[in-house]
């Protein structure tokens, strides 16, 4: 593996909550605060603003991240955040939707988003991702009733779980597993294997949620079928 240096590309502007966010958030007593890495070192003012409203702010360092409050797109499971306490709502600081959608998939609370660049407030709820969640549920049912399973493995080191996927054979001895390898999943290639009933994704867990529609036969994440 070639030596790799990461540059976080921290945001150089001011990070503070816009008026609409403050107005909306004030109905909550306890908020879980997370941000994209670009904003993680500039959350002091946000903390201050929430405290002025009498809101208790808590945060954590999620499992795969490098610092406290940082949220990744793969933090899409309930236990990803390493957060022991319950909160009334989550507040995400950042300018995209990919990261806060992870909270929608994994948590049961409303997600308030504040974009410090565009100075915009928005909300994300389970309704926004209902179609993906419904398909994921359907695919899980299909997995349990199917015989021929395609297991998709990536070579990307951060997402490669080949050995772990072999546990499927032990857990489901009556099913036949076929293993497919690719770097980025070529969705149009899936059609070339008509003998597969349903797919298991072993790479980024967001593939098994966001890309449900691209897997016409359905896809489940590895974590949902083995523990």
């Amino acid at each position, binding site marked *: *593996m*070639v*030596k*790799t*240096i*990461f*540059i*976080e*590309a*921290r*945001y*150089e*502007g001011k990070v503070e909550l816009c008026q609409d966010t403050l107005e909306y958030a004030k109905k909550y007593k306890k908020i879980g605060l997370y941000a994209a*890495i*670009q904003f993680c070192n500039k959350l002091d003012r946000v903390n201050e603003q929430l405290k002025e409203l009498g809101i208790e702010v808590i945060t954590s360092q999620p*499992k*795969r*991240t*490098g*610092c406290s409050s*940082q949220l*990744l*797109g*793969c933090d899409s499971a309930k236990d990803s955040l390493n957060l022991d306490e319950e909160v009334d709502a989550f507040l995400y600081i950042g300018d995209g939707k990919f990261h806060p959608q992870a909270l929608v998939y994994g948590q049961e609370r409303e997600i308030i988003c504040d974009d410090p*660049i565009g100075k915009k407030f928005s909300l994300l709820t389970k309704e926004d991702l209902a179609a993906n969640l419904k398909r994921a549920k359907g695919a899980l049912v299909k997995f349990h009733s199917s015989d021929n399973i395609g297991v998709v493995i990536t*070579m*990307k*080191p*951060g*997402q490669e779980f080949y050995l*772990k996927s072999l546990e499927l054979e032990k857990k489901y001895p009556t099913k036949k597993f076929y293993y497919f390898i690719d*770097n*980025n999943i070529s969705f149009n290639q899936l059609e070339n294997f008509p003998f597969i009933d349903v797919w298991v994704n072993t790479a*980024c867990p967001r593939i098994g949620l966001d890309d449900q529609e691209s897997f016409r036969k359905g896809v489940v994440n590895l*974590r949902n079928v083995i523990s």
Partner: protein
Amino acid sequence: MYDLELNRVVKEIQDNQAKLVCLQLPDGLKPKANEIEARINSETSAKVLIWLGSNFGACDIPLGLDRLGVDLVISWGHNKFRKEEW
């Protein structure tokens, strides 16, 4: 708007005596690739390759670059990823 840390980038290339460097940028920073390339060209003797593909996170680093002799990857927009072992 975002700190690209170009002084650090130049220093890392020099310190690592890198001859062939691959730049990986998230979509939002890809339009800055020419600016970064120009800076590296003016201050180091390294040849620059720009990764065309995805940059979903620190879990998504280009593979196989050693075959071309790339000796340093510089990846923007993310920090070190802690792969979950289970």
